[in-house]
């Protein structure tokens, strides 16, 4: 059961409910569902946490996820991950769950609409100066735009904008191409092959969620203060401010 027709490339075009000027399309509807899933799920799990050696399996699951995120973030940023965890973690959870649910019949991933991914990318676009100013002050943050010389400043600004567009289009293209390929295969070879592609889509969806959050972390880390390299750890900032 596909709610998207083959000639519709975004779930924005699927209108579920309409009342005067209020229009509820599939993107907004499934975004709400994912938001409720994440919020209620996390609330249910963290309601009674235990510090004993025996903890519930859901608590163990969340602990693994959160500890993994903290390790990755602090490895890239070279500092404590507490400030970045809420933002990056929410991005990852939202994108991962929205992509992983794509095997449910009648579901269209909200990330396969350009408006959702553009909104997420704009969040990153705003978060970069936010964390930069928090970390090194307004003057210090603005100074890094004119770092080698003042003439390089337009290119810095252009890079900020183009990498935001790249972030949005990359996620949209990957998820949209997945659902489109499955839809086209469904009309050609119905039984076995679409399932194989669906399984591949689950993998690609998770990798895209990872890449989106890692890139957001790298962009934020590029706006932070340059840290002195620790002894024996030669992991500098990986990509300072690359746009692709």
């Amino acid at each position, binding site marked *: 059961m596909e709610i998207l027709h083959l000639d519709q490339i975004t779930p924005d075009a699927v209108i579920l409910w309409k009342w005067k000027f209020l229009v509820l399309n599939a993107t907004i509807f499934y975004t709400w569902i994912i938001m409720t899933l994440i919020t209620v799920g996390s609330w249910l799990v963290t309601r009674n946490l235990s510090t004993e050696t025996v903890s519930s399996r859901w608590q163990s699951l969340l602990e693994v996820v959160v500890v993994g995120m903290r390790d990755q973030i602090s490895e890239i940023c070279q500092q404590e991950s507490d400030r970045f965890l809420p933002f990056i973690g929410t991005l990852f959870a939202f994108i991962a769950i929205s992509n992983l649910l794509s095997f449910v019949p009648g579901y269209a991933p909200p990330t396969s609409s350009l408006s959702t991914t553009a909104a997420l990318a704009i969040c990153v676009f705003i978060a970069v100066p936010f964390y930069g100013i928090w970390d090194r002050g307004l003057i210090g943050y603005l100074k890094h735009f004119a770092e080698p010389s003042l003439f390089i400043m337009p290119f810095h600004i252009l890079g900020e904008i183009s990498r935001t567009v790249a972030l949005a289009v990359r996620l949209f*293209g990957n998820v949209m191409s997945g659902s489109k390929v499955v839809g086209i295969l469904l009309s050609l070879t119905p039984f076995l092959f679409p399932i194989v592609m669906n399984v591949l889509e689950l993998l690609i969806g998770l990798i895209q969620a990872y890449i989106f959050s890692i890139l957001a972390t790298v962009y934020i880390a590029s706006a932070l203060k340059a840290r002195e390299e620790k002894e024996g750890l030669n992991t500098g900032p990986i990509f300072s401010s690359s746009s*692709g």
Partner: protein
Amino acid sequence: MDIKTLIGMFSIIIAGMTMFVGSIGPALGMARAVAQALSSIAQQPDEANTITRTLFIGLAMIESLAIYCFVISMILIFANPFWRYVTSQ
């Protein structure tokens, strides 16, 4: 041939050519990157974590080029503004 036929024909031809050119370049680039990363991991298995993460970021950068081409060919086929303009008349 009238303008409608021309627009439809060229949209499909250009969509195919976009995918043709736009997938060869990133494929070669990604192949080089993965080969280099594999030999680096074979030489220094301790650094596998950092190498893998950097590899993923680089692959995402390269892959976005192919994704741009894909999105453009999808727009040409499914959401072509010129086609919509011609057919609405």
